[in-house]
């Protein structure tokens, strides 16, 4: 075949193919335009819980039209929960806030953004020390960083707190007092490798369903994994569990001690591991416990733990001796892998720090640590409780990267890095959440020295405990000013003096950090409605307005504004002017400014441009000789953690005793401050349901989620109900020492509390259970206990 022939052949065959296609077209009905057409997909972490699933967001004509589980995401592998599948709907509730509003004579009226920013700046100017900034575990990393730098490095004010104080502060103090550094050593890979999953008061089937499915999937693949639900109420998790161990509230402390007692009694503790890597510790004065405690000897530990025999703990906890011995057997077996998980059950606890320490302690004592599948891992409730609240440091005692305000070296490092004068950062710890709102709800002449609070990305009007005392009491007190930035009207905006409309989720750029140290990033995909704007812009605009008003704290050593945004060619971009905010990716600038600060505690977060390419990376993320970046699965473990020297095996390199050892704590069982009595004979527990996320601001606006779970209820045992003459669906009055609310009774419902116990979810803003919850908190972590207080119930 010569060239011409070949050409002709090609031509004819092409013609034939074309005509065949044309004739086929003529015969078959016209193919409909694919509904996929015009849809642009991009990745984002889910807006809701701390699991950190990655979703794909489908956007068409400027609106979200579909959501898909990200098949390449290591966390969820294409699966989502019902909230995740419906996350697109949260943007489109008809009552989105679209304009800044100021309350005049009791009524909110529209004002301009310029006025709004000026009002906030003037309030702060008037009394910078009386300003509190209440942010969130849902704030993005750049939002948290801007807030913390503005407050601590600008206003010299440490009254900044995230709502994460209410959800994981006890996990933080548990990690720090055990390992010297916050956040889990293990990761979700442990769920794929463990032989036993032990859940401590953790209803994973509803609260972390995608992680729970990861375990259940293993069963479907024919693997044997023993699931143990250690709980105070039968839940969907219990139904999947091999063992449901129902204990009396608060006695988790005794159960953990009982496991340690058995390990020692039987001589089954991991002697080599303990000798090489651990030390023993206890509180110096149990009446006044602190974060670091004092060293005790092994013999002292042994002596103190001795009373927690299975027999005595059985009496206390309600578990049988056999059940306690089974737990002892599991930890005594060096050939199995045990992963412990917990969430609010252990954290929202008046002895939250203690129980966190004890669970780490039994893993260390038994050597069930540092091998795939052997890990104590706390799960977070919020998408960036780790990434923002803990790592950036938006708590009242923290500075970025695991630093604390009380450490002069840490203050100096931050002051130098931010180029602000020495002494700018205040050394005294600010007010923690409960105290901040207590001071806000107290008149000035009675010591209430917080007069202005700005709230971002959270809903304290529904989620603080004992709301009447800590939130609604603000109304009527002279010269108290509440600023709330939110996306919908909430229980918080109800009494706010200034309401700022915020952009949410994929209406803005963002970065989150999940429970397993995984930092995740996303880009803005759709426009926010009306005048709604990014929270990070609000913080920057307020700071710049203060700079214009001459607040000295807004200037660095050279008299320049403390925030600087330079574009690629080095020119300053005035992002505080909203017309220029999108000229540059402000998130990337703030994140990259923050990133080097994470190195001191070896929390090397990944560079922004690396995050863009991945569905999240687990820190420490360290650059390899070939220029690529490698994430870390297991911290403190040689071969996995790049900061553990060769030959060490395991090294707790941030040890509080500076000798590479982790601390095994002894903490005694202590009674709850409000146990049921004859007057209030029931335990009242509060929590979540799978359909709703926290206060329901977002999920209650999605028809599918609201339809499934339209209002709160009170779960009660059938025998208790019968004794009180309560039928299923009857209106009941649940009362505590702080007040009462009306709910419908649910007997044999989704959760089955034992006799003497009630459960009420907190998502319903029309039935605020937190009006009656207890505001007592852990003395170390200052995290309140929403899981236990004394209540009574009667038919309405």
């Amino acid at each position, binding site marked *: 075949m010569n060239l011409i022939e070949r050409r002709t052949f090609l031509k004819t065959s092409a013609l034939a193919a074309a005509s065949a296609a044309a004739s086929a077209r003529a015969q078959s009905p016209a193919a409909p335009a694919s509904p996929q057409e015009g849809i642009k997909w991009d990745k984002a972490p889910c807006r809701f819980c701390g699991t950190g699933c990655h979703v794909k967001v489908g956007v068409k004509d400027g609106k979200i039209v579909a*959501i898909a589980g990200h098949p390449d995401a290591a966390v969820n592998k294409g699966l989502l929960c019902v909230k995740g599948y419906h996350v697109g709907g949260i943007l489109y509730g008809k009552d989105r806030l679209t304009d800044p509003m100021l309350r005049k004579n009791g009524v909110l009226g529209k004002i301009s953004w310029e006025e709004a920013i000026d009002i906030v700046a003037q309030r702060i100017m008037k009394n910078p020390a009386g300003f509190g900034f209440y942010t969130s575990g849902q704030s993005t990393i750049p939002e948290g960083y801007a807030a913390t730098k503005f407050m601590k490095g600008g206003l010299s004010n440490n009254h900044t707190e995230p709502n994460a104080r209410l959800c994981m502060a006890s996990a933080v103090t548990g990690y720090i007092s055990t390992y010297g550094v916050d956040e889990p050593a293990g990761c979700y890979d442990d769920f794929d490798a463990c032989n036993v999953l032990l859940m401590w008061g953790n209803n994973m089937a509803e609260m972390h369903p995608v992680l729970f*499915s990861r375990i259940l999937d293993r069963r479907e693949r024919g693997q044997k994994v023993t699931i143990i639900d250690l709980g105070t109420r039968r839940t969907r998790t219990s139904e999947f569990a091999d063992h449901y161990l129902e204990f009396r509230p608060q006695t988790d402390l005794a159960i953990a001690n009982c496991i340690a007692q058995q390990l020692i009694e039987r001589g089954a503790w991991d002697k080599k591991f303990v000798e090489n890597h651990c030390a023993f510790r206890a509180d110096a004065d149990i009446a006044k416990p602190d974060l670091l405690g004092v060293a005790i000897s092994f013999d002292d530990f042994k002596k103190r733990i001795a009373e927690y025999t299975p027999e005595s703990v059985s009496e206390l906890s309600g578990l049988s001796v056999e059940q306690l011995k089974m737990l002892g057997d599991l930890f005594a077996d060096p050939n199995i892998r045990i992963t412990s998980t917990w969430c609010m059950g252990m954290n929202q606890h008046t002895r939250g720090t203690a129980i966190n320490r004890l669970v780490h302690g039994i893993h260390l004592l038994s050597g069930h640590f540092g091998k795939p599948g052997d890990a104590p891992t706390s799960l977070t409730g919020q998408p960036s409780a780790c990434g923002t609240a803990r790592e950036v440091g938006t708590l009242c005692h923290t500075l970025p990267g695991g630093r604390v305000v009380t450490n002069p070296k840490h203050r100096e490092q931050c002051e130098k890095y931010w180029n602000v004068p020495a002494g700018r950062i205040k050394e005294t710890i600010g007010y923690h959440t409960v105290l901040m709102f207590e001071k806000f709800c107290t008149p000035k002449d009675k010591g209430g020295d917080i007069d202005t609070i700005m709230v971002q990305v959270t809903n304290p009007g529904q989620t603080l405990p004992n709301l009447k005392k800590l939130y609604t009491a603000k109304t009527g007190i002279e010269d108290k000013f509440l600023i709330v930035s939110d996306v919908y009207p909430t229980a918080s905006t109800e009494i706010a003096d200034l309401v700022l409309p915020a952009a949410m989720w994929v209406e803005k750029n963002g970065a989150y950090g999940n429970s397993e140290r995984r930092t995740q990033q996303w880009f803005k995909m759709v426009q926010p409605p009306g005048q709604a704007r990014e929270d990070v812009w609000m913080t920057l605009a307020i700071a710049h307005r203060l700079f214009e008003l001459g607040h000295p704290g807004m200037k660095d050593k050279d008299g320049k504004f403390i925030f600087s945004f330079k574009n690629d060619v080095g020119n300053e971009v005035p992002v505080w002017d909203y017309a220029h905010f999108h000229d540059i990716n402000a998130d990337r600038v703030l994140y990259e400014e923050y990133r080097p600060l994470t190195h001191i505690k070896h929390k090397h977060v990944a560079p922004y441009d690396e995050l863009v390419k991945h569905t999240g990376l687990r820190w420490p993320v360290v650059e390899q000789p070939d220029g690529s970046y490698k994430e870390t699965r297991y911290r403190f473990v040689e071969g996995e953690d790049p900061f553990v020297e060769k030959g060490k095996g395991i090294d707790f390199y941030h040890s509080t005793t500076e000798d590479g050892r982790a601390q095994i704590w002894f903490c005694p069982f202590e009674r709850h401050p409000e146990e049921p009595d004859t007057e209030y004979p029931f335990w009242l527990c509060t929590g979540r349901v799978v359909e709703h996320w926290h206060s329901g601001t977002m999920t209650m606006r999605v028809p599918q989620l609201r339809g499934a779970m339209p209002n709160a209820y009170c779960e009660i045992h059938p025998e208790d109900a019968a004794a009180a003459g309560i039928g299923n669906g009857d209106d009941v009055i649940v009362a505590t020492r702080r007040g009462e609310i009306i709910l419908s009774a649910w007997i044999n419902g989704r959760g089955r509390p034992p006799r003497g116990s009630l459960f009420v979810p907190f998502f319903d803003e029309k039935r605020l259970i937190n009006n009656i919850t207890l505001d007592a908190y852990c003395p170390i972590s200052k995290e309140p206990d929403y899981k236990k207080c004394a209540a009574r119930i009667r038919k309405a």
Partner: protein
Amino acid sequence: MDSHDVENYFRQHRKTLAVVFLMVSMLAVSGFFMGMRQTEMQAPRIPVATSKTPADSLAEIPTAPKYKQIPTSDWLANRHWKFTLADLPRAETPPANQAPASPEETAAAIARRNSLRAYDGAPPVIPHGIDTLRSSACTSCHGEDAKLVIGGKRPAEISHPWITNCTSCHVPADGLRQITAPADTRLVVENAFIGKTSAGSGPRAYGTAPPTMPHPVWMRQNCMACHGPGREQAIRTSHPERQNCLQCHAPNAAFDNRETYLTNPKPPLDLPILPQQ
């Protein structure tokens, strides 16, 4: 029986009749209030779009016997009651060759399907009450042997049976039933989200070519759950005996939802543009 007899009868049985009358009136009064209560509670529910044909609801209901017939009728013996799953009738496999569904039937099938989903690809909501605690209850009807006929219908079969925590993704459209609070005491906000619609039927290269798949394979690996015998006629396969579906029906890459990264606006390589034919 003349009027005198009737009077006599009443006089003789006065006490009995009084008791009967009292009981009837008590029933009526309580029934009235219970009825009111029911309406009150049902009122706020969101209606679930289900196709209810008169045949479904009426055909199976037997006529009640007269009181006189009760002792001799089958009514008391409950002889024909089917109350265990095993006793429920099974669907027969219909003949393979059936006329294809009309465009109207197809449209109706798609509308029924859409009514339970926020968007194409979302997990459908559950159009009935559920065991709120145990997912194992779901599989008794929706498991791989979902051939039972309940109320004239076959329950949907699970297309991803290895995922066992059903209620983590599928929630009832009307979840709380009897403990749903009245609408004016609940937060009810309209939502303007409009989801992607179903792709309809898959495109064919030519008239008799096997259609490509109009949806992703993920979570729908069990093809027969939706396309098997006894399923919606609009999407039922005409050749259930052929088991390797993907041999002929190709997945469509358009459903891979591929992302476009904003930070890499430049194409990876300067590829030469192919000449037009």
